[in-house]
């Protein structure tokens, strides 16, 4: 392995030896991008944030559902209603989306909750294979693209967003930001973590460009934003 590594670095350095000094703007020692000339021109690129209405419109265009709830209890009622309408009685739960009150109210509504926290890895996987729906908490959402953002703090097992056929994600209203560049700028700690971005249900257009939802992951995604008006 070391032999291959040395050979590759040697080949690359020899290849660049003649031209690096004339082609690059950075100094020879560091990886610094040397100033604004090379920074991505994303500031001001985005259209003005269109608010929650825009977020909702984008999600619906992606085939996802959207609900705004004033409180955790109202969010729980919406989720319980949606589950009941679909005849779903079991729900895997990652963490405590929307807080303990939301989860408790779902339990009180007769939903069979399957908390994943504390389960051994294999048991967690098995549970997610079997349940018809999973409830998660998203860390953030990107308004422009209808994207949910997860870190290991809220989604320790990324597969939870891909295994059950229905994914319901809850997040506070204050966590909806304009777009990815705005997220990285306003919450730089996010850039230091593993990330998963989810935009709409799983989909494919590999057969004659016909859009089909639920290719491998959830065919249904609902986003519940809590606390907007407050």
């Amino acid at each position, binding site marked *: *392995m070391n032999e*291959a590594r040395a050979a*590759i*670095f040697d*080949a*690359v350095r*020899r*290849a*660049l030896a003649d*031209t*690096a000094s004339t*082609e*690059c703007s*950075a100094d020879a020692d560091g*990886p610094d*991008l040397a100033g604004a*000339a*090379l920074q*991505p*021109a*994303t500031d001001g*690129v985005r259209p003005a944030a269109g608010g929650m209405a825009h977020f909702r419109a*984008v999600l619906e265009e992606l085939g996802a559902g959207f609900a705004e709830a004033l409180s955790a209890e109202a969010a729980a009622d919406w989720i319980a209603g949606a589950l009941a309408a679909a005849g779903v009685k079991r729900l895997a739960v990652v963490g405590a989306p929307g807080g303990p009150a939301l989860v408790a109210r779902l339990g009180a509504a007769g939903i069979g909750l399957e908390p994943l926290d504390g389960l051994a*890895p294999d048991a*967690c*996987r098995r549970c997610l*294979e079997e349940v018809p729906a999973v409830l998660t908490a998203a860390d953030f959402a*990107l308004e422009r693209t*209808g994207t949910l953002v997860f870190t290991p703090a809220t989604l320790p*097992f*990324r*597969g939870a*967003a*891909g295994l059950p056929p229905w994914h319901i994600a809850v997040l506070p209203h204050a966590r909806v930001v304009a*777009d*990815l*560049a705005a997220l*990285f700028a306003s919450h730089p700690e996010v*850039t230091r*973590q*593993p990330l*998963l*971005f*989810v*935009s*709409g*249900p*799983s*989909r*494919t*257009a*590999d*057969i*004659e*460009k*016909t859009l*089909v939802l*639920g*290719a*491998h992951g959830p065919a249904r995604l609902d986003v519940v934003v809590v606390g907007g008006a407050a």
Partner: protein
Amino acid sequence: MPDSRPEKLKSEIRRSLANSALRSAVARATATTLAKRAAHVAAEPRWEAMRAAAARIKRETVAHLDRYLAQFEAAATAAGIRVHWARDAAEACHHVRALAAAHGVTEVVKSKSMVTEEIGLNAHLERHGIEVVETDLGEFIVQLAGEPPSHLTAPALHKRREDIGRLFAEKLGVAFTDDPVALTALVRERLRGRFLRAGLGITGANFALAREGALVVVENEGNALLTMNLPKRHVVVLGMERLLPSIDELPLFLDLLVVSATGQAFPGYVSVLRGPTPPDRPGPDEVHVVVVDNGRSRMLARPEYRELLHCIRCGACLNVCPVYRQIGGHAYGWVVPGPIGAALIPLVLGLERGRDLPFASTLCGACADICPVKIDLPGHLLRLRGDIAAAGLTGVAERLVVRSWAFAARHPRIYRALTALPRLLGRLPVRAWTATRDMPRPARRSFRRLWDEEERRP
């Protein structure tokens, strides 16, 4: 290199042109994607500024590739990712097979990756008794059909729904249907058990972030998400030019990639991987990355072609190319088709094997106009034509014609006599060209004569 056959370009073109179903499938699919892309670009007033910024960043990264590779390796290793280096396809395949063998893995799941196609990974693993299941729907279809992908982002773009229905009926023993929903559901059901059983998941990466040592995987179906997170081990095969300096550049490159590739605002799933999962959580407890050279350093050594390493494999140049849209991807005879393939193939496989490819272009410039990182593809194709001619690899007839023209151009009287010929004949003697096209009759008086008359006018 698996089943490369760019030498057969001309016969493959004839075959493709005779296949009206292929041509209509490719035309429909590419037109759909182009229309969606155009809508997004029209709504983005800074699109050109974004392209220019991306081109600068790629130029900077490639010009300092050694430094960014070392930085990536150090950060990835610190995060618990095991980094392997492969000079060529054989070494890359060996690394993956060794990992599988070390854990007694006989079944792997894989998500779409052009570099694994390039190194012939599937065939290598299968030869060593390891079953590989492609999990992207398009890749699953072409794997079942025993074909290579025909497009960078839509592997089965050349197939009609009825072709796929018949393929599934024949190979999977299911009742025929040409309903995309039913066909997709069938694949989902078939593959779910495979994800859960596989001992190893293999993916590519759209970007590797040098500062963070992170890998970025972009997809829509969720198959890569499952491939990366259900098996106990995950291997990323990475073309070494896929680096970006840091996560700061990711928003820009995601925008450009996804709009250019599929006409979406954002992909269904983007995973930013930063190492194995802690043991108390489900997920891979080993993450490996195989960094592949396989000719890239040779291309790097040619400054005039280095820009080709900026490609982010969005496939937009294929969609817009009037040649690709007529002949599809398989005619090119290598894993990367279209204008980018026509430029890469002679450089990767050699001028002799790829000598026809740079001529499979109208040089209309559409590929350069659409490229999100502003690669001057027509310029590279033109330069390659010069290299091929200089190497004496053009046909005898072509060399004769060009030399005759050069001679005539140096002798004005002969040149005038020759240019008068079509006017005397009333047409040009190019039957192959006029068999399917109208050739306008030559003007009665040449431009030169008109000009002379104009000059003499008092």
